[in-house]
Every structure is written in C-alpha cells, then in structure tokens.
C-alpha cells in the first residue's frame, strides 16, 4: 500500500520532518541534528524505492487529493525525475551528515533553524523534481528559493549583501517563470504539463506562446545562473557557511537545469524550442561562451571557494550546452553531467569546508604542503579535480564525452573545440592547486599544525570521492537504463 504513495512521500517526508526538527529542536537543541538526519534518510529510502519501481514498471502517476488531471495536481515519477530525486536526496543526506561539526563551529546558536530550513530546501527541490504541474512547480520553486536565500545570508559579514543580490535576481527569475506559465494558462486553459504538451502544438505560432517560452527560458536561466545572468552566484557562494554551500552548490543550479530540460522535453517539445523559436540555439552559444569565459575567470581567482564558484558556473554551462544541442546524445551528456557535477562539486566544496574548519584558510596561495597533513581530504580533492578535468575512469570524462559526441552529431565543431579547450583550462586551475598542495613544502605554521578533519566530515568527503570513481565505472548502466529511455521517449 505504501508503495502507491512513494512518490508523494519523497517531498512530504522532508516537509514533515522539517517541522518535527523545529519542534524537537525548541525543546532541546541537540535533538535537531538526529531528527534532520532521520528525515533525510527516509527521503533517500523513498526515492531509491521510487527509482526501483520506475525501472521495473515504468513511470508512476499520482493524483494529489484524488483529483485526476487536468483539474487536480499530478505528480509524475518518470525515469528522469526518479533519477534526479535519488541524486538530490542522497546529496542532501550526505551534506546533513557533514554539516554537524561545521555548523557547530561557525553558527552554534542557529543550528535548529538551519536544519529546519535545510530540510525545507530539500523538500522544495524534491517537489520541483516530482511535480507534473506547472504552477505547483512554481510553488516549490519559491519554497526552494526562499530557503536558499535564508541559508546563504547567515554566512560571513558580506553574506547578507550577496544574498540580497541573489534575492533580487532570483525573484526576477521566478517572476518571469510565473509570467510564462500565466501565458500558457490563458492560451490553453491547463496547468498540467502533459496536458499542455498535448494542447500546445495547435497554437505554436501564437505570440502568447512564443512570449511564454521566452519568459520561461530566461526566468529559469536566471535561476540556474546561465552565463550572462550569473552575476549573483560567485559572491553568494563565497560568503555562505561551508556546510550550506556544500548542499546548495551541487543541487540548486542543477535542479533548475532539470526544470529547463523538463520544459524542453515535457512541455514545449524540442522541435518547438529549436525550430519555431531558436531558443536552444541561443542557450547553446551562450553556454559555449560561458564555458570559456568562466573557466578563465576561475583561473584568475585566489580564494578557493570563489574559484569553485566560477568553476560551477562553467560546469552548469556544460549542462546548458547539452540542452542547447537538443539532440539525443547532447541531452544524455547534459543529464549525465548534472549527476557527475553534483558529486564533483559537492566533494570539492566539502573539501574547502574541511580546510576552513581545520586551518581557517581560504586563499589558494597559502595551501603549500597541505597534502602531507590532510592526506585523505586532499586525496579526495585530487580525485574530484581529475574528474573535473575529465580524466577517465572518473565520471567527469564520460559526460564530456557524450557532449562531444552530441556536438559532432550536430556538426558543430566549435562546440567540440570549446569542450576540449575548457578541459585544458580546467587542468590549468586545478593543477595549480594540486601542485601547491602535494609538491610544495609547507611554509606556514598553520599548515604545519593542520590535521585531518573530524570523521563526521571526512567520511562524507571520502564517500563522494569514491562515488565519483564508481559513477564513472557504472555510467554505461545509468545511460542505457535511465537516460536513454528519457531521450528515446522524446525523440521518437
């Protein structure tokens, strides 16, 4: 019986547990962490069971309140959303495990609200993933955004200003998305994605639908920090608390990239966004420009977290490049890169947090010789960095490989060149750190006294690093069983 409800339990378990966390945390502060851990563990279990059910029996549809669509709200767990749900809840669980020591050091008085809001953020992200309703997606999008603003704002002294910029840009993005949904609603009279996809082809030439598509693409582009609309991201990521950023950096922009893919494959069909209005062409070229420019910006940074933020911007452009190609191989590459980059960037930001926890260092120029003192941490960093550069068998190689194949398939040799060039640029900024960390001699007392972070932080870091290799080894399974059905469904 419970299996019927598994899809709604993914966001609801997190939602309910965020309130239980607050109530128990008010009684006793030390109860907040275990409660949050239990809540996110339940959501991981639900999403894994959901993925297994989808792999066995195909997509699951669930009608909230028993009202069938198009009147009621429908939740859909198909291959793509089941895959994203497992990714999101798993990264959420790992970062909650990781967060305890970090919060205890940085923000000991705010632990209860932080865990409450973290669970609420995860609930919003899971809701975005499983919903099959355009307006319901907006509601969850606002839940995820508002909680993310709050989490990013509690960091260092400059964090509130950075978060405020994010509030402005994020609100504009959400508002554009809502305008687009409004246009779709008054043209078709439906908010259900599957229903809208059926009704839209008849009125593809209508100006309202063109405006809707443009508004939605720009709005989601702002939210996912697509290249020219990215200015809010570096500051927000740099000044946030380290445990928060190791949750938000892997998930937020990726989930919005998922929304863009969802719009491309489930609402407007690819032939509309690539032929009738050249949206995917624009996304693709912006992404190509963004990959190069953001990689160069990353080379120029000295603050480790800021460098990772710029690197995130370059990586989200890979996903956008896959969307922009709008052909089967490119889309597989983009979706696979969502998964790979979530693990790589999660690992890297956790390493940054661990270094900060033990030494307080954030500046790359002072990292000399850190590898000898923090072997496991920096070893994991090395794996993640090699994966970012794209060296097999780490997973980063495979998504770039599919993106390259997609570009060749589309006959777009410029994109092939951009991907190759950006791998070189990635190598430049990661080898700069690898050289300092592993081959330079310690020249600083702080580094001399550094030690491995506590086990609660080290274990998540190592798990992420192992997962990077493991995902690289099992990527064929993921592609053939999960991603190819998504693509085949769209392009046939």
């Amino acid at each position, binding site marked *: 019986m419970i299996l019927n*409800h598994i899809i709604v339990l993914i966001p609801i378990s997190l939602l309910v547990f965020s309130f239980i966390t607050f*109530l128990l945390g008010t009684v006793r502060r030390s109860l907040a962490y275990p409660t949050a851990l239990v809540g996110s563990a339940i959501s991981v279990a639900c999403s894994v069971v959901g993925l297994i059910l989808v792999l066995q029996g195909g997509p699951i549809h*669930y*009608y*909230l*309140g028993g009202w069938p669509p198009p009147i009621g709200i429908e939740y859909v767990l198909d291959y793509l959303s089941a895959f994203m749900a497992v990714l999101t809840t798993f990264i959420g669980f790992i970062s909650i495990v990781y967060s305890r020591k970090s919060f205890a050091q940085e923000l000991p008085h705010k632990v209860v609200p932080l865990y409450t809001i973290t669970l609420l953020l995860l609930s919003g992200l899971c809701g975005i993933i499983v919903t099959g309703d355009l307006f319901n997606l907006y509601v969850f999008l606002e839940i995820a955004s508002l909680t993310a603003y709050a989490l990013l704002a509690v960091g260092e002294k400059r964090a509130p200003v950075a978060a405020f910029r994010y509030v402005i840009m994020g609100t504009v993005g959400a508002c554009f998305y809502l305008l687009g949904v409004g246009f779709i609603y008054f043209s078709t009279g439906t908010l259900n994605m599957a229903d809208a996809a059926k009704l839209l082809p008849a009125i593809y030439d209508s100006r309202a639908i063109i405006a809707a598509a443009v508004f939605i693409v720009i709005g989601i582009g702002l939210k996912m920090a697509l290249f020219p609309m990215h200015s809010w991201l570096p500051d927000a990521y740099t000044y946030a608390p380290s445990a928060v950023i190791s949750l938000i950096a892997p998930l937020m922009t990726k989930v919005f990239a998922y929304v863009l893919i969802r719009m491309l494959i489930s609402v407007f069909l690819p032939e509309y966004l690539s032929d009738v209005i050249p949206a995917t062409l624009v996304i693709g070229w912006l992404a190509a420009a963004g990959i190069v420019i953001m990689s160069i910006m990353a080379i120029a940074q000295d603050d480790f977290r800021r460098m990772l933020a710029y690197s995130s911007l370059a990586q989200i452009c890979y996903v956008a490049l896959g969307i922009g190609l709008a052909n089967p191989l490119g889309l597989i590459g983009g979706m696979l890169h969502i998964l790979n980059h979530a693990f790589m960037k999660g690992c890297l930001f956790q390493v940054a947090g661990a270094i900060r926890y033990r030494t307080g260092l954030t500046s790359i120029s002072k990292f000399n010789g850190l590898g000898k003192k923090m072997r496991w941490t920096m070893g994991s960093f090395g794996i993640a960095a090699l994966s970012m550069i794209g060296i097999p068998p780490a997973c980063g190689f495979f998504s770039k490989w599919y993106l390259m194949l997609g570009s060749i398939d589309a006959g777009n040799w410029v994109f092939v060149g951009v991907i190759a060039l950006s791998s070189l640029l990635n190598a430049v900024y990661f080898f700069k750190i690898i050289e300092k960390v592993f081959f330079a001699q310690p020249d600083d007392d702080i580094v001399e006294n550094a030690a491995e972070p506590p086990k609660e932080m080290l274990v998540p870091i190592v798990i992420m690093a192992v997962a990077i290799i493991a995902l690289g080894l099992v990527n064929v399974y993921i592609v053939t069983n999960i991603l190819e059905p998504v693509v085949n469904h769209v392009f046939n």
Partner: protein
Amino acid sequence: MIAKYKNIVVNIASRVMAPFMMLYALYALFHGHSSPGGGFQGGAIMAAGVMLLRLTLGKERSSRKFPVWLAPVIGTTGVFIFAGTGIVTMLGGGNYLDYGFLPFPFLSPSEHRFWGILIIEIGVFLGVSGIMVTIFDCLTAEQE
C-alpha cells in the same frame, strides 16, 4: 525593544480592541466556508491583534500574554497539522490530502470533506498567525 506607548487613550483602546480582533479572527476562520474569510485571512487578523498589543503595550508587557518563543512554535504546529492531515488520509487508504478518506466515523463523504477542509484551515490559521508574529518579532528584535 519597543517601549510602552505613552498615551492612555491609545493604550486603553488597543486593549479593548485586541480581544475582539482575535474573536473576529476566529469568526473569519470558522465561517470561511460560506462567507468571505478562511484560514489565511483569519490568521492575518489574529496576528494583527497580537502585533497591536506588541506596539502599544511594549514587547515586555505583551510577551507575558504571548511569549516571543511561542510564535514560531504555533506557526510550525499549524503547518504540521496541514501536512499531518495529508498523512492521515494516506493511512485511511486515499491519496495525499484526499479528505474523503479521513477516519471520521458516522459521517457522509461530503461531511468528511467539510470537516477535512476545516482542519486544513485551522492549520493554515495557526501557520499564518504564528509566522506573521515571528516576522514582526524578528524585525523588531534588539541587536545582539
């Protein structure tokens, strides 16, 4: 800290008005099915009553009636009632938030839905009033 407002007319008037505002909030909540009103509106009026006391009597005096820590607890309890109702309907065999499956004995399906929506509205009422007072308290909180 907001001090007590030094004007006897304002003080007495707000102390008379506040209980009636809260009573009207309950009316707006329970009469929301058949007339304008509902959980959100009722909750906003309820919070306005508390805020009026906070503004005129001062925070110290008014928190004897309505402590600062209580507001977020009420807010979360409210949303918890909302989400919990959905879980109860799932245990009753229906989909999430399908009020027809609430375990009320001796009631017809339409009455199930009537009482179900009222429970939801109570949850919304508590949630909105708690969170609005919390926001007010945070905005007027003293710097540490």
